[in-house]
């Protein structure tokens, strides 16, 4: 199975939200990384056929997804950034409703809904109304509805936002189990999640693909560019004007700062092993590098 995005563009009035994006996705987990407004959500909505491209086309195994229509959507699981529900429905009833719209028979829906409510840890509140659910619980409902039709293509927009650490770990494990032989595209602001889940990362900036590569290769691109230094408050204030700054940690003798720079930024700075967060800071962290 190959999902191909060919020179796709999406404009809203004057704004070009997605700018000439071309990607080829085969089985595996892909992470979509980019700052707010980079076009991640718009690209995902184009892939799930909620939005129509202004130019270019998206194909599955060579056939345009708009031509495939229902046959494409039968293979699709989508979790939007903001989960919309019917607040007067119980968790079970809402999942059964989505199952009916996905074409599952009553019997299939019954067993699948029960299985998925167990998987996301909501079996105890299956008959409670969604209007009383917390943000984290609604996201879990969102994850469950995504998996109802056993999709071959999973598009997940910020699936871990609002989940507590334990839920995030549980979700990452679910995704690891599911990822074999499926195309999974996931966007999240939590870079550490991406490091655990995604095999390849797509960096998106101003609607265009900046880079797409395996996580370890991307980390390699910033090797020798990540520095650590212990600074005073005054030094930190002046240095943050000049360089992209990663993690900052308070210490008894000052502030331990990760600095992203092509050259050694300070005399006392020591080169350190980069992590995916440094890749994000390097590509999106500001103009000064």
């Amino acid at each position, binding site marked *: 199975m190959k999902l191909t995005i060919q020179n796709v563009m999406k404009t809203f009035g004057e704004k070009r939200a997605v700018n000439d994006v071309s990607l080829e996705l085969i089985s595996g987990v892909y992470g979509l990384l980019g700052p707010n407004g980079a076009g991640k959500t718009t690209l995902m909505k184009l892939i799930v056929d909620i939005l129509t491209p202004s130019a270019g086309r998206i194909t599955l195994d060579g056939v345009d997804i708009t031509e495939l229509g229902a046959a494409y959507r039968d293979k699709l699981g989508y979790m939007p950034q903001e989960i919309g529900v019917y607040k007067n429905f119980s968790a079970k009833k809402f999942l*059964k409703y989505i199952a009916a719209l996905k074409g599952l028979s009553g019997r299939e829906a019954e067993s699948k809904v029960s299985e998925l409510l167990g998987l996301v840890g909501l079996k105890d509140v299956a008959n409670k109304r969604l209007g009383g659910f917390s943000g984290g619980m609604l996201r879990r409902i969102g994850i469950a509805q995504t998996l109802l039709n056993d999709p071959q293509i999973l598009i997940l927009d910020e699936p871990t936002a609002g989940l507590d650490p334990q839920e995030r770990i549980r979700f990452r494990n679910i995704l690891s189990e599911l990822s074999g032989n499926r195309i999974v595209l996931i966007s999240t602001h939590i870079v550490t999640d991406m490091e655990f889940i995604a095999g390849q990362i797509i960096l998106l900036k101003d609607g265009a693909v900046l880079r797409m590569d395996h996580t370890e290769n991307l980390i390699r691109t910033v090797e020798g560019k990540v520095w650590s230094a212990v600074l005073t408050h005054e030094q930190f204030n002046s240095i943050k004007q000049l360089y992209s700054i990663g993690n900052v940690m308070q210490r008894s003798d000052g502030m331990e700062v990760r600095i992203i720079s092509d050259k050694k930024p300070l005399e006392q700075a020591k080169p350190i092993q980069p992590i995916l967060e440094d890749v994000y800071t390097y590509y999106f962290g500001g103009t000064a590098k």
Partner: protein
Amino acid sequence: MNKKESNVSDLNLDKEELKVINFLKEYDVPAASKNEIREFCDTAGTYLPQRRVSVWELRFWKIAFFEMSGKSPLFWMCCAVILSIGAALMQTAMSYFSPLMVMILSAPVPFIAFIIDALHYRDPNVVELEMTCRYDVSQLYVAKLLIAMLFNIVIILPVAFAANSVYLDGWRLILCVFTTMFFIGFIALMLIGEAKNSLPLSAFLALWIITGAVVLRQPEVVELFENISIAALAIAFGVSLVLFTIKLIYAAQHMHLYAKTGGCNL
């Protein structure tokens, strides 16, 4: 000549077909089992172009079940009040109100209450999920609005029959009820297009009941409705039905296009 060849010659095949058969004889094509052929057809079938699947393939009662089972107690109370009016009309020939006027006033209330209830509990983002499912979303919303109107008819018909026992001009009653139902339904759908929540529609319902109760009690208004010709009422009914149908289709498409054009949380 073996058995296979004799079978081929027995069939009245044209030259082109024979050419293909002879060409294929050069290759050893392994025989596939029925299961393998079925499996291949199933896989290939999923790649066949199949634009939007009509929502009518999803059983109508299924949508109706989901729609009806989620209704709030307030909605059911509203319907109970309307049915009580019917019971009251059956018991007494209400001298204070004209049965015709009572029916005109209450005719569109279940439909509006249905939509208010639906809008109140519906998160606009849910359309994004519905759009990624297999059925056509516009048709799904047409079906939902049709369910609301069918429900309105189911509630109002017994009341109309009750009213008919004390008001003898049956055709006038039915035409007035259905014209009001479809015309007010048309206005309600116009308001849905503009509104993001149930507030404008709730205000409209309150306005309809209050002004209706005042205006429809005026003797001149009652006389006007009593004297309109049946032909004029039939035309008004036809016009209201057409307006409602057009607006129903437009409203459903609007919900679909709202997300398609980027209106939903980009």
